[in-house]
């Protein structure tokens, strides 16, 4: 579908809403999500020659974003920036203004998942990818993806409870 590398920018523009959604599912707030989106887009444009014509641009971009996210976490971890204080409860004042109540609740619950489970949940439940597509983005066997997904779901269900 994408004939030349020069056109990739426009296709990425069209993917931006989904990329931002995936980024928001990984990071805790919209600000970090947009930083991550920017990092992923820059990386994709730098490496656009590596994109094979006819391959799925969305899968390629999500893979790049996954790597950018892991690098970002690592860099911030070293500088101690992700060591945010644990939220103790339901304080509307600390809810980011971009978040609806349900986004806030789900986001908080996802933030507590181990990274690999969060990635699996974000790709399959938020982005609606098939197991095969999600496993390819994460570069793991399908069995690994499904067990991470199952553990992530069980933890989310417990965190969100039946009432919310």
């Amino acid at each position, binding site marked *: 579908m994408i004939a030349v590398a*020069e*056109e*990739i*920018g*426009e*296709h*990425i*523009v*069209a*993917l*931006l*809403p*989904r990329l*931002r*959604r995936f980024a*928001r*599912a990984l990071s805790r707030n919209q600000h970090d999500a*947009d930083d991550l*989106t*920017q990092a992923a*887009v*820059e990386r994709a*444009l730098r490496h*656009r020659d590596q994109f094979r014509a006819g391959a*799925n641009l969305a899968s390629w971009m999500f893979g790049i974003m996954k790597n950018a996210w892991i690098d970002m976490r690592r860099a911030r971890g070293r500088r101690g920036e992700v060591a945010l204080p644990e939220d103790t409860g339901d304080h509307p004042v600390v809810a980011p203004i*971009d978040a*609806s109540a*349900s*986004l806030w*609740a*789900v*986001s908080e619950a*996802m933030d507590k998942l181990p990274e690999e489970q969060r990635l699996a*949940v974000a790709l*399959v*439940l*938020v*982005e*609606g*990818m*098939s*197991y*095969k*597509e999600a496993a390819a983005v994460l570069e793991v066997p399908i069995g690994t993806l*499904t*067990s991470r*997904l*199952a553990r992530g*779901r*069980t933890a*989310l*269900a417990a965190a*969100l409870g039946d009432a*919310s």
Partner: protein
Amino acid sequence: MNYDDETLMAFTDGELDQRQRTEIAAALERDPALARRVQQHRALREKVAGAFAPLMEQPVPEHLSKLARVAVQPERGGNVVKFPARGSRAPSPPWRAREWGAMAASVLLGVLISWKVLTPGPVPVTAQNGALRASGPLAAALDSQLASTQSGSEAVLIGLTFRGTDGHYCRSFLLRAAGTAGLACRTNGEWRIPVTAAAAGSEAMRQAASMPPEVLAAIGARLSGDALDASQEQSALKAGWDTPAVR
């Protein structure tokens, strides 16, 4: 037969083969406890997907779309298809009726071929004066189906419903059997279809929320304000979709 959680999750995610699906669907009829577990998995999936879904309607910050466009070499820019920026109020590029007609005809052919092969009964789209109109099962779904109450197994899935920049209602849809997604906008008592695109992949076949880029671009060009929530969608349906245009 007892099923583990991973199998039931895969059932919820549409990842089982036909034989396992049928087997579990039959077991659900007999076993309320099993049905309850499946319902819990489904509810979690919907809750998580639903929490993030509204982000698809947010305008993308301009610095991000500008950044991606930097890659397009200026001297070749003339040949590149320009997608309108999301959140922009500018109307779509003024294509001549002739060009629309040519595209409508080829798109229609694609939709009809894939539809007819897979589905008996009336066709979902017809062409008239170079414009595509929803008909048959698609028109029925656009008229009467609510995104908030659909089960996901309908032949047509409704995605976003919103008011376009001209005040008319638009709804994105997915013809599952035809593998085609599109946008329909209410004009003079019928649903006109400005854009359709192939929705490839199992992901697109399950979720009306994930639309191909062409459809997203068309939504972005028309969207003013927020998409309707469940209750607004219901009121708009009750009102028959025909509202006076607001400027």
